[in-house]
């Protein structure tokens, strides 16, 4: 399979990439690692006339502490996040979740900015990011703005990003020794989750239970009221709208959401008490 024809624009700076987006509008797509975009293009589900390659822009890959937050450059590849010492110390849910993406070859190419922009409800890192809470920093022709992660993913392949904006950074709170867990259920080793649950500091997010990654708000509210893990996890699928496919029907996905949420909360609680 071969993608449809397009013109490749090699951006040398963020401003350069944005200028290309302004010039070509809806006809342009950003190319980072390309591991979500190129498969879509090979299937002709996406046929952009222009690809703007941002992988040559210097300084887009980093993980650093900034006040109470950890700032991650949008170009940070999954294998870099997986091995990053700052991330391991400050927000360990992220490097662990990065290690669960696809397979080593995929993690060598895929970027955090790419997976956030793609808005696949079955993506690993967006699930962890949504549980962490935090912001997406985007840049457009008028400068930078910050979009809360809770408002960024609007639906299947749909985000709050304008067509002339580029994701430049992801910011999440430092969680330090707070308990965390990412529980992912797949049928095959390197697959997307059928359902997954991320838990950290009393917050829970779910993969593949709606058009985008979603918070398990009923579970979070129950935990805040002092409910037990079992009681709170039993509410995990409330308000979700999972799809059905050959791997799982809706009721099975709801079952998995409750089960994986319970496992994630138990593991997070165990990790928190071990750290205390």
């Amino acid at each position, binding site marked *: 399979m071969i993608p449809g024809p397009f013109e490749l624009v090699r951006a040398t700076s963020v401003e350069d990439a944005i200028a290309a987006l302004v010039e070509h509008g809806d006809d342009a797509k950003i190319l980072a690692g390309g591991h979500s975009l190129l*498969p879509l293009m090979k299937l002709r589900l996406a046929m952009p006339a222009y690809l703007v390659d941002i992988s040559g822009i210097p300084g887009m890959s980093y993980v650093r502490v900034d006040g109470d937050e950890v700032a991650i450059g949008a170009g940070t590849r999954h294998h870099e996040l997986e091995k990053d010492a700052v991330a391991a110390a400050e927000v360990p849910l992220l490097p662990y979740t990065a290690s669960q993406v696809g397979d080593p070859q995929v993690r060598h190419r895929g970027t955090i900015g790419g997976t956030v922009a793609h808005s696949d409800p079955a993506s690993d890192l967006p699930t962890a990011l949504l549980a962490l809470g935090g912001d997406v920093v985007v840049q457009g022709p008028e400068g930078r703005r910050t979009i809360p992660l809770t408002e960024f993913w609007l639906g299947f392949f749909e985000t709050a990003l304008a067509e002339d904006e580029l994701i430049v950074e992801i910011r999440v709170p430092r969680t330090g020794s707070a308990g965390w867990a990412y529980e992912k259920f797949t049928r095959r080793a390197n697959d997307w989750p059928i359902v997954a649950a991320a838990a950290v500091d009393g917050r829970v997010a779910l993969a593949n239970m709606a058009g985008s990654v979603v918070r398990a708000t009923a579970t979070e509210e129950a935990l805040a009221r002092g409910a037990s893990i079992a009681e709170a996890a039993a509410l995990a699928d409330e308000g979700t709208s999972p799809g059905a496919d050959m791997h799982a029907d809706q009721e099975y996905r709801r079952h998995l959401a409750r089960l994986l949420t319970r496992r994630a909360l138990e593991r997070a609680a165990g990790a928190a008490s071990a750290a205390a």
Partner: protein
Amino acid sequence: MQVSMTVNGQQHSDEVEPRLLLAHYLRDVVGLKATNIGCDTTSCGACTVIVDGLSVKSCTLLAAQAEGAEVTTLEGLAGPDGELHPMQKAFREEHGLQCGFCTPGMVMAAIGVLADNPDPSDREVREGLEGNLCRCTGYHNIVRAVQSAAKAGPAAGQVPQGQEVAR
């Protein structure tokens, strides 16, 4: 557009369409046919090559994305005298193949596994090769081959020219 890269130590520069995939560039333009195209959907790993020290699936990379890179394919592993790379030797000695279709990608991915972890457990080898499918299901001997290569020393986790391969 013009793309330039080093393939197995040799400089190549060619006029290609932007949409040309690295797998097709290696096979049809450079003429190196060891890199197989299996699933063509980033799943099976048969097309795995090493780009700038990291294993990648060349069916999901544009040739243009390898601009300026050092690319190593299976053909680049053996020495000029035909001496096999330690990973190739181990696959032969442990019979880490049946039909052989997955083997080029499996060998390249296995070098990456050892670069990341020079003494992996059985489970760590299996997890490191999770992106490579053997439809003959000959996994036991493949895992044995990787562990046997690990005992041969650090060269088993490196591509020639002393280039380090990280996972």
